[in-house]
């Protein structure tokens, strides 16, 4: 994990002394509370523009980032906060950025969807980040590095032609590229059933690319899958695909959710914090929740105070 932007808050990124289960829970809780805090800051009129929260998908980001190291690169999309926070821990830089402040990670120029930090970039246009991530993988290959390039896309992104142009090239050239496809069942307001013909898995396999498909919100299962895929990518070259079937619990951006309430409610019962939280005692969970809460509150205060 790359460390950026000054001092990290272990209340958010985890302590060396705590158990793996505690640490993973804390890191997911961090992302969840950051996103929920953003949404309330929007409601309070503190933020402008838009945001795409990843509530419900935190386990994907946390699991993948656990297995990256310095030199690896992550390219993310419009729904990038979780990826960025899991990769960098830089809550203050991100919040300041979304607040449009000079102290933000891109001086307020990029905002929510356009983040750049060591080993991390995001862009809000669907599809076009995939060839860029492949280009970074090609750079790694040319320079003889064993670093990998990871790109996060969603089910909706599978509608973009740039994805398939890139899969073809990445497979032909065996680029060290890991495509993490987070299928959260809905592309903005359109369900996968109205968006996608055939099989997601087959789309990748058509290029001879190995696909690890997992239907889970359990961070431990995802963590194991990510570990194996990333290890295999470093060992044998690429590309590879980690296809995660998950669910977005919040609206696409803000106040734009017309999904069936019952469907969403059912998914709240199996969301990552519930699933993994069961592995902790109530006391352990409460202690982490409290410390994340205090840290997030400090993040907001700090970011508000920045120029």
């Amino acid at each position, binding site marked *: 994990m790359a460390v950026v932007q000054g001092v990290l808050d272990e209340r958010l990124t985890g302590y060396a002394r705590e158990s793996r289960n505690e640490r993973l829970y804390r890191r997911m809780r961090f992302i969840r509370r950051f996103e929920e805090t953003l949404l309330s800051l929007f409601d309070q009129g503190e933020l402008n523009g838009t945001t795409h929260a990843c509530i419900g998908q935190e386990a994907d980001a946390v699991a993948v980032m656990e297995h990256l190291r310095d030199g690896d690169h992550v390219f993310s999309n419009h729904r990038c906060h979780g990826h960025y926070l899991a990769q960098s821990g830089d809550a203050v830089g991100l919040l300041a950025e979304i607040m449009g402040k000079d102290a933000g990670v891109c001086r307020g120029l990029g905002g929510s969807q356009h983040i750049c930090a060591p080993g991390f970039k995001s862009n809000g*246009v669907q599809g076009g980040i995939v060839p860029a991530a492949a280009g970074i993988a090609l750079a790694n290959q040319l320079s003889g590095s064993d670093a990998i390039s990871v790109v996060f896309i969603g089910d909706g992104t599978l509608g973009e032609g740039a994805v398939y142009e890139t899969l073809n090239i990445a497979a032909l050239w065996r680029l060290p590229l890991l495509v993490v496809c987070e299928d959260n069942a809905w592309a903005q307001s359109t369900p996968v059933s109205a968006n996608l013909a055939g099989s997601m898995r087959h789309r990748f396999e058509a290029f001879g690319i190995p696909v690890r498909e997992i239907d889970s919100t359990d961070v431990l299962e995802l963590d194991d899958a990510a570990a194996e895929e990333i290890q295999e990518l470093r060992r044998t070259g690429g590309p590879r695909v980690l296809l995660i079937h998950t669910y977005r619990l919040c609206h696409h951006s803000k106040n734009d959710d017309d999904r069936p309430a019952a469907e969403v409610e059912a998914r709240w019962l199996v969301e990552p914090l519930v699933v993994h939280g069961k592995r902790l005692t109530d006391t352990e969970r409460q202690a982490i929740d409290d410390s994340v809460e205090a840290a997030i509150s400090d993040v907001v205060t700090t970011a508000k105070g920045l120029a």
Partner: protein
Amino acid sequence: MIFAKELGATLRACLADDPRVVLLGEDIADPYGGAFKVTRGLSTDFPDRVRTTPISEGAIAGVSAGLALAGYRPIAEIMFGDFLTLTFDQVVNHITKYEAMYAGQAHCPVILRAPSGGHRGYGPTHSQSLEKHFLGVPHLRVVAASLVHDPRRIFAELLQQTSPALYVEHKLLYPENLTLAENGRIGGLLASEHSSPGALPSVFLSAVPRERCTVTVLAYGYQAALAARVVERLALEDEIFAELVVPSQLAPMDWDPVERSVSATGSLVTVEEGTAGWSWGTEAAAVISRRLFQRLRRPVEIVASDSDIVPSSKLKESSMLVGADRIDAAVRVAAA
């Protein structure tokens, strides 16, 4: 040496001198060596860094973007400039955005090369000069090859920059000899160069010193070669004296050399092969009219191709595209 070979030698030198340079493009590898043979021989000598790609212009541009973000210097060939449309998302929403939207924390110095232009009967989708659609894209440098600019200097300069560039190469330049200034002359014309800080050079060409010229002709690429012939012929046959300004960089445009020339001549003709309207010429007219309103004797004359498809029929194509006759007629009118 003909321009195609000069350009190939330039790319070879770029590869040899700078291990960060990577060439991507469709059919660019040997033995084919590219649709216009510019890259012939390069993949044999630099197999890792000269790569033939699938027919995927969007990914060619996008993979180039990633290479550039990672510190490499990709130079991608888009087989026909017409296919630049397929790179537009990468150019507008990715390549030219990164450095600015990331507050200078990343650079994306992709160079796209695009064989462009008509007069070869290739028809509506293989003959266009689409660079006008890229002019004015913030943070994009649009550069045009010509016979009076040494591609070695242009590429050396582009490789010094962190900004991305589109380099358009009119196809009719490939078999022509490069004609660089020697002893202040190119052929029968006086030649001099102007370089503003931070901009690529412009070349001035005229039969007589600027003070005796009554019109400035602003042209680039292959049209500049046509315009040079017109300027020379009008001087010899009709004693109509024009100064031709040939910029290598179209956007952002260095207006200084144009302003200098028009300040003396009082009249301007712009020439481009792209279709008429919303164009380089209309931008030139707007800028020069504003800057030199009192010095202009007459409205700026804009020569561009018809706002239409480029027909396949050789006869119909030559009537639709700008040719020497249209330049000649416009210069005569504007010189008066």
